[in-house]
């Protein structure tokens, strides 16, 4: 037990794990374009995608999850030890800033886990007047497509939607690129538009429960790094 603890509280372990993770991502970047199965990876959540893909194509992702898991344990153990060791120091910002960074990292990884397990994405092509019924009985109608063109390119586009709940309540929504309509925690995204043949749009429905935790992690990470940069520049004044 003590041996395992010693391994996990070592910065050397951190360095080895980061190096291995870099190698795995390098392998992943080479493997991804080789298999057609990767075209679907962003259309569903990671764990669902993994369950339908042979190990010979997805091995590096399992390794990636394993190493990140070990890295999180290493991060938590190192942080706890650092706080205990440096408890008496008066320069608490220098103690706290790396821990904020580590906490931010842990939140971002938690977010990835939630997204990999629970995120859902659906795609549909709709024309004006068409609708789609969801499993909960709610219906989404596409009421109007708006766009503007400049030099032959679409420079702006939006769709007006009507969301009708199963009890008959109608809610008007608008979705445009970078401004999704959000309803009941689900985003309705306008992904693409075809005005050449039929006037139709590609709509994406997405729910990503990890996103908020990734944001929390990102804020903590940046707070910690900013504090560390400020302190290090002051401390190591040359």
């Amino acid at each position, binding site marked *: 037990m003590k041996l395992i603890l010693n391994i996990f509280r070592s910065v050397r372990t951190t360095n080895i794990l980061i190096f291995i993770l*870099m190698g795995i991502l390098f392998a992943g970047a080479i493997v991804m374009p080789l298999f057609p199965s990767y075209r679907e990876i962003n259309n569903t959540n990671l764990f669902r995608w993994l369950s339908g893909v042979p190990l010979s194509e997805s091995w590096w992702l399992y390794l990636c999850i394993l190493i990140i898991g070990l890295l999180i344990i290493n991060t938590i153990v190192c942080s706890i030890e650092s706080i205990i060791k440096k408890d008496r120091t008066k320069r608490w910002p220098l103690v706290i800033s790396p821990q904020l960074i580590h906490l931010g990292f842990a939140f971002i990884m938690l977010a990835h886990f939630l997204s990999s397990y629970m995120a859902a994405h659906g795609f549909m092509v709709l024309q004006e007047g068409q609708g789609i019924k969801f499993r909960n009985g709610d219906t989404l109608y596409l009421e109007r497509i708006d766009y503007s063109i400049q030099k032959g390119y679409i420079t702006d586009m939006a769709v007006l939607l009507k969301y009708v709940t199963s009890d008959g309540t109608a809610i008007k929504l608008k979705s445009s*690129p970078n401004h999704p309509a959000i309803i009941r925690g689900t985003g309705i995204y306008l992904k693409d538009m075809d005005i050449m043949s039929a006037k139709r749009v590609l709509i994406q429905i997405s729910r990503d429960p990890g996103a908020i935790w990734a944001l929390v992690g990102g804020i903590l990470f940046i707070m910690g790094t900013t504090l560390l940069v400020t302190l290090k520049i002051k401390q190591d004044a040359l």
Partner: protein
Amino acid sequence: MILILQPLLYATTFFWQKSIFIAILVQTGYMIYRGLTLGRLPLIGLHDTLLFLSLCTAVLSIPFMGRFSKQKGFFLYIAFLSAVFSSIGILMKPSTMPLPPVLNTFWFEFHVVLSFLSYGLFGIGAILGIIFFLYKASSDKKITEALQYRTILTGYLLFSLSMIFGGIWAYFAWGTYWLWTPKELWTTLLWLTYTLYLHLRFRQWWRGKRIVLTGIAGYVIVLFTYLGVGLLMKSSHSF
């Protein structure tokens, strides 16, 4: 004419150091002109981004110039990098297309600007690594190594911020803050490289030439992530 002038002025720094400031002014003027003509930040495609990277590298090196006023190598390497980037940049076709709706957001602008500012700092970090090997005195080496660390740490902050802004933008644009594409993997690999650099420095054995070399190696990954991945692999990024 103003295009050719940019790498030429950076190259002139080899003979007259102060021409780097004229190069910066000319390049800034060109970028502003392009921005005003297009009605947006000129940061789409290799032409604009290479020129912006060239400018970032030169501008961010200004605070170091006082310290390295007697070390001509620093100016020469900065000028060399900026000249190379702007030379390739002017050969690329400038994008004149209107901004696609998905790029019309300040999250995208922050994401790109911060990326290139961090690339500029990582480039300066690599140059400081080369300067480290040019110095003979151990005191000079120690100061240069510490400067490389501070430069890379600041670059790391900006790069992390850029990744977070990229994630926010991706969430609003595509419904997820992360996409599995080779570009995202290489960006994470780059972030891990500098995370490793910052952690390796905790170990005494790595201090000195080993850590400095890691800082130089990191820049090779920067260049591949920016240019290599965009040109060789299919990705959500056009650069």
